[in-house]
């Protein structure tokens, strides 16, 4: 440590602006938050300190609007090794192995620069997973864009998909699933939620808590630049004329460095040299150093002169706030420093000892011989503001009007060929989804299935939410999002293990938005409890609105399920000559349905109610039917109801399907109703009575509704050549992109 730092005299250079309330506000701090800082320190913070506070206390790091609600989520279970609070959640899968996963948003950066925004989003979430000691084995992404015909949509979609592929493909993780929607509510704010799933030894998970005094704090990875410095917090007058030049630069992803960082970290962890580790995400050095100290009950002293920099004349402020990617902070065992050094050099990675752990509860930052920050470390996160923001339940949606005047088969043809329900192959063909040679079920099914390398086991992965439902009734929508991933896993034959969430909402300072948030969390919590899927990690993204117009509430749920043997997997594609059996109760619920929205842009009526006990019974029955050897294929029902589910099965199998006309419901409600807790099963005709018996015993309504075979798709007496359906489905996104 330098003399000045030791002497403890804090210095603000002449070039640095004087700190006052206006500057604090320009950093996004509220007057009461600034007062809190003054009270805490008993003095005015230095410029660098103000930057540190703004980073630690912004919504992204402090979760100040969401924290009290997140605490209500169920996070425990016998399978959970580590719940929320670390870089990613950790769940036991037996055989001494654990699955490590999390989802995170990169919404705003992707809207500004779609390729790099999405790429660095993927990089960030992969880092979260390997920081825990896990090798990433799969990635998913949930994307929401504006209306298909909005002028920005095509460019955003093309750039985001290319960026996700560009990063994940080079890194070498298979991107196996996700979701993609278009809705005008996302015209001004797209959503890019990336999920990563990794595999680790259950007894060697790495955490961020530092331990031991006087241990070296090591910086590893890419050099630090001015990337992202300031972001929203730098909009003020301080830069005057040359604002353009000093504008925060967009972060650029470097998957090649990330790949080396992954391999180096895993080698380092295996060598026993790592005591604790934290990746540098948003406000990199600040958040990671504080987190390591805080969790370990230690102080940290940083010497910024040692930080590897990519640009000249970087200030302490800039280094502490830089969001340069592909960087890690670690506390190393001093006895193994040579081992560590050899590994860094093998992978040609920059590394430097940038500080040490100290006994006192202080966060000391020195640079150029001067002390730039001297803060009480624990209080930095411990006294971060927390709000109980007012919240209002949203108004009830408009009542459900008359049914569209359209023949069911024509409605289906339009749905299947729409941007929202057309084939996603245009997306996933740009993602390497077969690298690592463990992808047993590729994208396009209910859940993707990847093998647990070297074992009989496999993991099922899915991500979902239905924002239309969440907007109309947040509690029901929250329940439904969890129920749908539960169904995705169950229809694939997997036992649900746990979920991660990515809660995307508008401005929480508006009570109606906060009401959506509170409602969705309540629904998610109830469903996770009822379905035994604890929330082990997650991310909150607020302020997704432009000029007062917010996105639809979009709490994306990412789920992981386990298959003890890959043979337990249930395919989605039936064979020819199968009987189709519908599980669950059909009332023909068309409120907030895909049918109304896609055909007539009507968001009317309440969303379908979710009966969690019925969900559980139906999901368990599907797995039991598979175990009894009765199932050829299964698919869960969601958007578009029975007709769309059957069409997806027919398209996947390239076989015709005939669904019988309903007996006592209107055909549109029967075929397109979105009642929950339903599955469509394909079985050998000879199994029908056994299947109905098992369903009866399980208390799940079941009935045959059609059969597979031929090359025609029929709804009652109306039908279409399968080739027509398929043509519309396959060209939906290429048509949108103007490629066909």
């Amino acid at each position, binding site marked *: 440590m330098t003399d000045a730092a030791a002497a403890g005299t804090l210095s603000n250079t002449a070039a640095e602006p004087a700190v006052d309330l206006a500057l604090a506000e320009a950093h996004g701090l509220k007057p009461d938050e600034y007062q809190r800082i003054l009270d805490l320190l008993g003095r005015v913070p230095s410029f660098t300190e103000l930057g540190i506070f703004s980073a630690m206390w912004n919504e992204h790091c402090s979760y100040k609007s969401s924290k009290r609600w997140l605490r209500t989520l169920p996070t425990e279970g016998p399978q959970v090794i580590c719940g929320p609070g670390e870089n990613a959640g950790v769940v036991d899968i037996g055989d001494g192995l654990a699955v490590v996963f999390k989802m995170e948003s990169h919404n705003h950066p992707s809207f500004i620069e779609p390729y790099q925004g999405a790429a660095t989003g993927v990089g960030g979430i992969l880092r979260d997973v390997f920081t825990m000691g896990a090798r990433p084995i799969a990635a998913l992404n949930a994307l929401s864009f504006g209306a298909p015909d909005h002028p920005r949509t095509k460019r955003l979609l093309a750039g985001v998909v290319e960026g996700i592929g*560009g990063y994940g493909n*080079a890194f070498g993780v298979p991107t196996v699933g996700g979701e993609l929607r278009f809705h005008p509510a996302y015209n001004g704010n797209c959503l890019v939620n990336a999920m990563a799933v990794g595999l680790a030894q259950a007894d060697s998970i790495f955490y961020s808590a530092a331990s031991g005094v006087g241990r070296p704090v090591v910086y590893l990875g890419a050099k630090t630049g001015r990337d992202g410095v300031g972001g929203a917090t730098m909009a003020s007058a301080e830069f005057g004329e040359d604002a353009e030049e000093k504008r925060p630069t967009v972060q650029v992803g470097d998957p090649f460095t990330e*790949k080396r960082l992954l391999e180096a970290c895993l080698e380092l962890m295996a060598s026993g040299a790592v005591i604790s580790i934290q990746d540098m995400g948003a406000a990199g050095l600040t958040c990671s150093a504080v987190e390591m100290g805080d969790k370990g009950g230690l102080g940290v002293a940083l010497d910024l002169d040692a930080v590897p920099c990519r640009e000249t004349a970087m200030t302490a402020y800039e280094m502490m706030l830089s969001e340069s990617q592909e960087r890690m902070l670690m506390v190393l065992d001093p006895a193994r420093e040579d081992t560590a050094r050899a590994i860094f050099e093998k992978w040609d990675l920059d590394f430097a000892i940038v500080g040490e752990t100290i006994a006192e509860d202080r966060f000391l930052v020195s640079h150029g011989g001067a002390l730039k920050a001297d803060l009480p470390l624990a209080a930095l996160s411990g006294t971060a503001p927390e709000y109980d923001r007012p919240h209002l339940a949203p108004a009830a949606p408009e009542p459900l009007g008359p049914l569209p005047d359209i023949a069911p088969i024509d409605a289906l043809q339009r749905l299947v060929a729409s941007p929202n329900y057309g084939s996603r192959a245009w997306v*996933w063909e*740009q993602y390497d989804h*077969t*690298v*690592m040679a463990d992808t047993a079920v590729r994208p396009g099914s209910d859940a993707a299935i990847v*093998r647990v390398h070297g074992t009989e086991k496999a993991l099922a992965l899915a991500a979902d939410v239905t924002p239309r439902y969440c907007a109309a009734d947040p509690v029901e929508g929250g329940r439904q999002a969890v129920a749908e991933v539960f169904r995705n896993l169950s229809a694939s034959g997997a036992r649900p293990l746990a979920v991660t969430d990515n809660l995307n909402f508008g401005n929480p300072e508006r009570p109606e938005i906060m009401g959506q948030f509170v409602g969705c969390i309540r629904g998610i919590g109830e469903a996770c409890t009822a379905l035994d899927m604890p929330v082990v990690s997650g991310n909150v993204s607020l302020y997704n609105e432009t000029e007062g117009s917010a996105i639809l509430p979009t709490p994306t749920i990412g789920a992981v399920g386990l298959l003890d043997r890959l043979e337990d997997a249930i395919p989605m594609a039936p064979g020819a000559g199968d009987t189709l059996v519908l599980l669950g109760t059909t009332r023909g619920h068309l409120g907030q349905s895909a049918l109304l929205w896609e055909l007539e842009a009507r968001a009317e009526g309440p969303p379908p109610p979710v009966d969690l006990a019925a969900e559980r019974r139906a999901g368990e029955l599907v797995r039991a039917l598979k175990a009894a050897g009765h199932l050829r294929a299964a698919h869960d029902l969601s958007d578009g109801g029975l007709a769309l589910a059957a069409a997806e099965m027919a398209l996947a199998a390239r076989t015709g399907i005939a669904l019988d006309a309903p007996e006592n419901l209107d055909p549109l409600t029967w075929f397109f109703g979105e009642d929950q807790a339903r599955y469509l099963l394909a079985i050998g005709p000879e199994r029908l009575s056994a299947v109905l018996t098992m369903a009866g015993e399980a208390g799940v309504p079941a009935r045959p509704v059609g059969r597979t075979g031929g090359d025609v798709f029929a709804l009652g007496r109306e039908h279409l050549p399968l080739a027509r359906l398929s043509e519309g489905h396959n060209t939906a996104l290429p048509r949108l992109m103007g490629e066909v």
Partner: protein
Amino acid sequence: MRTAVVVFPGSNCDRDMAVALEQATGRPPTMVWHKDTVLPEGLDLVAIPGGFSFGDYLRCGAIAAHSPIMRPVRSFAERGGLVLGVCNGWQVLIEAGLLPGALMRNAGLKFVCRDVHLACETTATPFTGALREGQVIRIPVAHHDGCFVADDALLDRLEGEGRIAFRYTGPDGHDGPRSNPNGSMRAIAGALSENRRVLGMMPHPERMADPALGGRDRVSDGRLVFESLTAALQES
């Protein structure tokens, strides 16, 4: 049969290749680091795996082609050793001058990952002996720069000398609109060196060497390439 897999810092199919080689030969390959300057003694085959060797910056495979390990790989090939380059591995072998032509950005400009069908064009190689001539196999591609380009003279020569190992085709062996995933000239998916002992191919046989990965039909056509190799080496 003794095999080795070359590992560059951005390789990402090295493990997949090792698994497939071990499955076929019963013996794990030696993993060789790009900074190494010698290959293990007594090797029968060196595999250059897929991935993004050095980020695929500058040109795919260009930086890797200059790494220290490529010197011994080149002399191994010159002595008649077997070398298999898959995807990025083919790009590296081309940049290293061990195979002719160039691999450029896909005609569709996008990364493409999906199953393709390949017609086996020659069985007179150690890599394809277990196939039938004209046999159509299904294995995945996953690349951004797989468009094979050469001048007419070279293309004619490759064809004339039977040095095209695989061509993209349709499931029934006839060309369809989606059969050539990258716009490769004359639909070339894999080509051989003059001595027929170095093969570069864009599709990934190692990703389809296990029926569990072959979807509903449990296809494992990639295995044929590895079985050809073991058979060829047993004979010799």
